């Protein structure tokens, strides 16, 4: 079989750019200079990191369930991007990413409730992703000018990723809103279900008045404009549903089972290294 050996040898090359960010065998933050994070900066990075981590976890549940293979690839890609963002943000807190992900109880998580809600149908996924990425893109876009250079660099990279997430969600919103009667009906139902979780996205946490942070209230105009444009194109009405502007740290009953699953192997092997 000598004729195959060269092909085989060529496969063991180390430098393939297709391998996803943060999955290599080296530290994803290697080479990034970081000043130690103060308490407020750490708290802020934890919030933004938890949003990405929990949203990614819900996207991971879609693996092998997507309506088409193209969406299978896209959703895994979005989940990977958010997981990558979570990892660098958690690292920026100065604590170990796995301690934070695997050894905290639900009450200690700082994510918005929108990220943790249980999955529904594909319309639910599309609406959640549209709302989440429209909000997060507006946030990261401003955060790229953060007074903390590390956070600014993390945000600048995230902008490119989340712009794609928003685009993906917006395209599906239009296809489903302006598709069949059934898809239109499902989209309206998903909008009604998720809209109560919109106001919390714009409630400022005390740390969000710091110079390294972005005041979420300042994102509302951009959010409203983008959503109005997408929904109009999709022939969908903006839901007339009152929301609940709960503060950060408020959770639904869905978070505990999500964490139970996420942390199950880590907890079953105490003292293990992975």
């Amino acid at each position, binding site marked *: *079989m000598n*004729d*195959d050996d060269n*092909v*085989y040898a060529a*496969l*063991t090359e180390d430098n*393939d750019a*297709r*391998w*996803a960010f*943060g*999955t290599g*065998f080296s530290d994803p933050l290697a080479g990034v200079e970081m000043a130690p994070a103060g308490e407020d900066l750490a708290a802020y990075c934890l919030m933004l990191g938890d949003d990405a*981590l929990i949203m990614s*976890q819900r996207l*991971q*549940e879609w*693996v*092998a*369930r*997507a*309506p*088409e*293979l*193209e969406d*299978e*690839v896209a959703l*895994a*890609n979005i*989940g*990977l991007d958010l*997981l*990558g963002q*979570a*990892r660098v943000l*958690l690292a920026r807190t100065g604590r170990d*990413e*796995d301690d934070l992900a*695997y050894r905290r109880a639900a009450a200690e998580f700082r994510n918005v409730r929108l990220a943790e809600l249980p999955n529904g*149908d*594909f319309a639910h996924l599309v609406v959640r992703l549209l709302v989440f990425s429209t909000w997060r893109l507006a946030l990261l876009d401003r955060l790229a000018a953060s007074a903390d250079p590390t956070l600014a660099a993390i945000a600048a990279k995230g902008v490119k990723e989340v712009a794609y997430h928003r685009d993906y969600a917006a395209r599906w919103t*239009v*296809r*489903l809103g*302006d*598709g*069949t009667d*059934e*898809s239109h009906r499902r989209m309206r139902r998903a909008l009604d279900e998720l809209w109560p979780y919109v106001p919390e996205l714009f409630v400022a946490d005390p740390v969000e008045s710091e110079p390294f942070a972005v005041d979420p209230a300042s994102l509302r105009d951009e959010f409203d404009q983008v959503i109005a444009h997408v929904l109009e194109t999709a022939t969908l009405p903006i839901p007339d549903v009152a929301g609940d502007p709960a503060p950060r740290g408020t959770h639904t009953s869905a978070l505990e089972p999500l964490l139970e*699953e*996420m942390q*199950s*192997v*880590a907890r079953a*092997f105490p*003292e*293990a*290294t*992975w």
Partner: protein
Amino acid sequence: MSPSAFEDVIARDQRIEPRDEMPDAYRKTMVRQIAQHAHSEIIGMQPEGYWITRAPSLRRKAILLAKVQDEAGHGLYLYAAAETLGVDRADLTQRLIDGRQKYSSIFNYPTLSYADVGVIGWLVDGAAICNQVPLCRSSYGPYARAMIRVCKEESFHQRQGYELLMTMVRGTAAQRAAVQDAVDRWWWPSLMMFGPPDADSPNTARSMAWKIKRHTNDELRQRFVDMTVPQAEFLGVTLPDPELRWNAGRGHHDFGTPDWDELKRVISGDGPCNAERVANRRRAHEEGAWVREAATAHARKKGAAA
């Protein structure tokens, strides 16, 4: 291209391309093989996909999610390669969920612990690489080209699996036990991935004559065993075969006989997870029907407006 032109291309070791004439039996064989391969990638997302939400570190989670995403990507371009032969993806998917087309027997075994993720990378992806590297020179051009990309990514998958196992065997006693347990369960099914023994593989001779296949099942199985034994030693695990030993006379390892009746049962649909795997695929496909219909309806409206 006349039949003799087809033979001529094969004889000169060149590639058959989609618009070339080819014997019906060649076309059918290629459709069956590529579809089966594509189905294997898609069904193969399930046994590992289960562990993505449970991965024990964020780095392992990212690696596994990237790997399973690669598998969806492999499925996509393999279905595209099959479509160059005049079939379509939706029809092939229907045949899969109706049980009219097969996928690799290996994905009908359960994944019972996170060590299985490592062992699948090491043994299952290792066996897949042994099978697929020669297919990079397969006579059907689109398939051969798809295989080059698939093999490159598979080598990452194998590497991450082995690296996970190396980390686990250096960890706690419970981790080492989980690795050995997974090796015990996956070793024989991995050997079965190369198919039945040559004497029971009626299609091999023709596939080799057409240069679709380059080596027989038994040749590839031997190559895999020889490659894997030193890796197992380095890892410090035992391969569950009392007959496994080096044969200096042959220059190869001797090894025991896989349970071919088990392979037949698993291939004919009676493996531990066949029903579950196909049911999951069917559910995803059926639950996505309204989405695909909506996309089609929207595209039609756009087309009418343009």
